[in-house]
């Protein structure tokens, strides 16, 4: 009998490990991503990539929050940081998912409240440097980039502010607009 005990214990441990390994996560704990208007994101993305997406910041593949686009990292292997000049459709899709996926629960609440409580988002607080941010202040409260982001979050995207902050001129052409 004594000789069987280790075998029985080992078997029990194996079965337990198997059951735990095969168990699924609690589906009730999942958060459906709800973000601001996806179509309008094409207005917001140039600003975000320009302000945040340089290759030494969120345009680096080593960052959790990654942005792709002109002037930063590109998604397609054949592209380069400075070519093509506009953010590509796949890059827009990845960037949108990255933005709304940082804090999906808070993003959902903010969007459903038409932008109320936007200052709960790390995206806003870090961009404004209201929360410790290695990159410092990239978006000043009240500047066109700030207006662009906050109006997008409240589903009233200010296209002119986004174009100004993203350095987009007539016909969607990127311009040098700073310093």
């Amino acid at each position, binding site marked *: 009998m004594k000789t069987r005990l280790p075998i029985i214990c080992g078997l029990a441990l194996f079965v337990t490990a198997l059951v735990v390994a095969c168990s699924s996560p609690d589906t009730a704990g999942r958060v459906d991503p709800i973000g601001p208007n996806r179509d309008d994101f094409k207005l917001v993305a140039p600003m975000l990539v*320009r*302000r*945040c*997406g*340089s*290759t*030494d*910041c969120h*345009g*680096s*593949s080593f960052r959790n929050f990654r942005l792709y686009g*002109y*002037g*930063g*990292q*590109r*998604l*397609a*292997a*054949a*592209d*380069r*940081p*400075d070519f093509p000049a506009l953010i590509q459709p796949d890059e827009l899709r990845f960037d949108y998912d990255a933005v709304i996926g940082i804090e999906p629960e808070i993003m959902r609440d903010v969007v459903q409240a038409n932008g109320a409580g936007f200052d709960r988002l790390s995206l806003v607080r870090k961009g404004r440097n209201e929360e410790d941010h*290695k*990159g*410092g*202040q*990239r978006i000043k409260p009240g500047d066109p980039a700030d207006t662009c982001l906050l109006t997008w979050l409240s589903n009233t995207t200010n296209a002119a502010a986004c174009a100004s902050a993203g350095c987009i001129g007539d016909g969607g052409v990127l311009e*040098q607009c*700073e*310093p």
Partner: protein
Amino acid sequence: MRALPLALLAALALAAGTSCANPVHTDAVAALGDEAPGVKQGPTHRPGQPCSTCHGGEGPGPDFAMAGTIYETRGVAKALPNVTVTLIDANGDARKPVSNEVGNFYLRAEEWAPTYPVFASLSYADPATGKNVSIDMISRIGGNRGCAFCHHGADNEPSHMPPVFLRLK
């Protein structure tokens, strides 16, 4: 009798010494390799290498505010001296270092403490044509002090730019 406490003390000192080093930084410095033969440490050493690895605050070199190497043409490994590098920080504070004989430029940390992002442009008085050539960096410098952190390697990568250049091909 005293051997055991001494051994423990030695082990503690060793552990403390080892734990204070940043292994990632140590590896990054080691990966740069030895100095080129005949070149001493100084303003003309290691052109094209990521300056901020050793001059970015963790040593072993002195801290730089910004440093890099300028090349004449995109994707061509020919350094260019006498290029004025105009750097303007987020508050409009500007510095204009000039590239030396191997293309290197640098600003010591005590000379400048920029508020990021920093905007960069190059200008060069071409002695062959007598004309001034200039180029603006499209994106901003987000926080790294060394050009080669982003500007390195081949000219066909989606994740980084080739070494800093004055002219397109």
